[in-house]
């Protein structure tokens, strides 16, 4: 079944349906009542604005202007039954269609089902708008083993990521058969989406690891301002932007000619959990911090330039001819000028996962990046950074995962349809 086969119930509060008696009314009775009722404060225009279209050539959540919050989950497939997995992908796609449109999961939703049954929607997003929710799926290298007959479908670019210098990877924070990235402007909406998808997957998938993120640390549209990471610096000034069609075509979207026709219009997602030693960073002088990053902390201008979006000039020297953007600065090493033109689309988030038990915050950047061929883009970049970046003194990569992100879904289609065809 698909989401179009029954009348959607909006999550927005159904006027006049409060009270226990009303909760027993089936969805048929509710149809047409809730559909056009809006949350307090939402004009119809605003409500339309905060729904991101689920269908399309590419999955949403890649070039979509970055939302404020993230809930990311990596799952292992626990069944060996291919049909069960395909059925789950269909179920998930249907739920994702509904949730991204601001609707509840399942036919009865949170309060419209039988009183004696557990509700089909967990309910914490009732009364919340769609909040620009996007749900994006990816398939890890381990899915392409012999369990589901997918070995021949594994894209060559979907490598097992190498161990980079100074990595300190926690096995409990890496890998996975399937990932789902939920991004929304409301943290509760993102959490609700992942929670409900995980719930639908019990018996077929199990959570391997997950990550909450806040305060987008990149912008993917020229319409967005550049946010700051937990080092206090603007992050993502030179990120690939949705408006750069040629760069997206060349460096983000996979094509059939890349080797796997099912990946045409897809991309490859690298996830890295990067712990920041923020306490020692905060003891670094302003000049030291700026030299490590290669930008000014205030305006975010490349050193030697005046404004944030000035192009960095790596050939400018200051006193004594010392390069103003130091040889071991982050900006220089990560720049496409120094990586044979390679760029990536970053979509990371800040995180603070409580504390580490010895008096420091467990904080950092949950790095998410999309590229067309990780072997030629992310890997050389990370090799250069891990071995030469002055910033590594303050960083520790604790989690690592890699996923093939299939193309977008057509109306009536499902996630990964081409892979399981």
């Amino acid at each position, binding site marked *: 079944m698909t989401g179009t086969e029954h009348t959607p119930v909006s999550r927005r509060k159904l006027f006049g349906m409060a009270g226990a008696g009303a909760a027993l009314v089936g969805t048929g009775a509710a149809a047409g009542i809730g559909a056009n009722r809006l949350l307090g404060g939402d004009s119809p225009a605003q409500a339309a604005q905060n729904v991101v279209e689920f269908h399309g050539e590419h999955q949403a959540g890649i070039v979509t202007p970055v939302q404020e919050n993230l809930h990311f989950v990596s799952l292992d497939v626990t069944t060996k039954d291919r049909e069960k997995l395909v059925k789950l992908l269909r179920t998930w796609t249907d739920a994702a269609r509904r949730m991204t449109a601001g609707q509840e999961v399942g036919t009865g939703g949170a309060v419209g089902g039988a009183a004696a049954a557990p509700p089909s929607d967990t309910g914490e997003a009732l009364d919340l708008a769609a909040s620009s929710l996007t749900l994006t799926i990816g398939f890890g290298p381990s899915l392409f083993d012999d369990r589901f007959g997918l070995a021949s479908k594994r894209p060559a670019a979907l490598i097992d990521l190498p161990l980079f210098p100074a990595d300190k990877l926690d096995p409990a924070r890496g890998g996975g058969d399937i990932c789902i990235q939920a991004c929304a402007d409301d943290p509760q909406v993102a959490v609700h989406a992942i929670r409900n998808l995980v719930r639908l997957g019990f018996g077929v998938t199990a959570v391997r690891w997950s990550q909450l993120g806040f305060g987008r640390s990149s912008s993917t549209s020229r319409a967005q301002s550049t946010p700051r990471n937990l080092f206090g610096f603007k992050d993502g000034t030179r990120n690939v932007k949705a408006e750069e069609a040629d760069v997206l075509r060349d460096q983000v979207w996979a094509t059939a000619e890349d080797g796997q026709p099912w990946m045409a219009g897809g991309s490859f997602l690298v996830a890295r959990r990067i712990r920041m030693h923020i306490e020692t960073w905060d003891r670094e002088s302003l000049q030291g911090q700026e030299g490590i990053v290669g930008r000014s902390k*205030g305006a975010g201008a490349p050193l030697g*330039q005046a404004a944030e979006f000035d192009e960095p000039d790596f050939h400018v020297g200051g006193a004594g001819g010392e390069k103003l953007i130091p040889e*071991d600065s982050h900006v220089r090493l990560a720049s496409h000028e120094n990586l044979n033109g390679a760029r990536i689309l970053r979509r990371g988030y800040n995180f603070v996962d409580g504390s580490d038990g*010895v008096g420091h915050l467990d904080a950092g950047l949950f790095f998410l990046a999309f590229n067309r061929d990780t072997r030629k883009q992310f890997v050389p970049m990370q090799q250069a950074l891990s071995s030469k970046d002055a910033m590594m003194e303050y960083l520790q990569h604790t989690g690592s995962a890699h996923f093939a992100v299939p193309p977008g879904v057509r109306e009536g289609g499902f996630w990964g349809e081409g892979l399981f065809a």
Partner: protein
Amino acid sequence: MSRRFPLAALAGVGALVLTACGGGEETPAAAGGPIKVEASDSACAVSVTNANAGNVTFEITNKGSKVTEFYLYAEGDRIMGEVENIAPGLNRRLIVEVAEAGKYQTACKPGMTGAGIRGDFTVTGGGAKQTDPNSQKAQAVKSYAEYVANNTKALDEETTKFVALVKANKVDEAKAAYARTRVYFERIEPVAEKFGDLDPKIDAREADLEPGQKFTGFHRLEKDLWVTGLQPDAPQIADQLLADVKELVTKSAAIELNALDLANGAKELLDEIATGKITGEEEAFSHTDLSDFQGNLDGSKAAIASLRPLLQAKDPALVSTLDKEFGNVQALLDKQREGDGFKLYTTLSQDQIKEFASAVDALSEPLSKVAEVASQ
């Protein structure tokens, strides 16, 4: 070892341009906007040849057929700012902060060689030349240089003994000598880090190696002694370690430090403790982290001791805070002494580790303020 490479430009960043915070809209303060420079293969036409002190912005256009460079020189050809690799037809910008009034020279270098096509450039206003060598700073640097010399000498002697034991296959004795030897290295680590490739050769942790990078130095022998047994190439590794240490001794003797280096070094040693020793990552096989911890602490204390007269004059409260916090960390370390060394790091409880981390944080915060005081 540190994962960080030395910041090359710790000293003399007079010309480093720091853009005004907040706005990002401001153009550098040169009267009448940027100064146009038209460079060709035989000329260097600078549209305006004088400026007020402050940020001076040049916009260089290469109209010639050769790749060129543009420089602003102070007297004696001291580079104030430069931009290289300006290809034919390109426009490039150079913003130089010129604090002092005086005579300067502009230069275009078509073909990026030679003295270039020079022109006079005058800066007016601004501050007077600073020619007051601070004797306290000079004294601080001199006294710390002696500390470095003493410790590199001891490192040389102890490494010689350690290497001899490894080569003689005397595993137990080599293990006993290992931590004792490393203390001297840990004390002067910020100095070692100034020689980019030497530090990793001597002190790289296995976890930090790059693909294809050979595992050498102290930690490779540590792994042999504690985990795998001495490998066939251990004698060569030992010889290389000694050669690298000797090179470090030679280079350290010639290095010119300044007061800011001392202050930053003192802070970096504590960062080392916070990110390497507290986690037990430094001595992953021998678990002699506490001995390294003591070495880092000694080195930090020595740098602060050298700066003491200077700090005492400028910020006595900071000095007493540092004394107190150094004392706290030392007291915690003293509790873990055993024989002539320390207990293994693996014997510490989580609570004890946390106590160390808190004491190190309490010391590191005031330590991070020393640089500003020392550079006044």
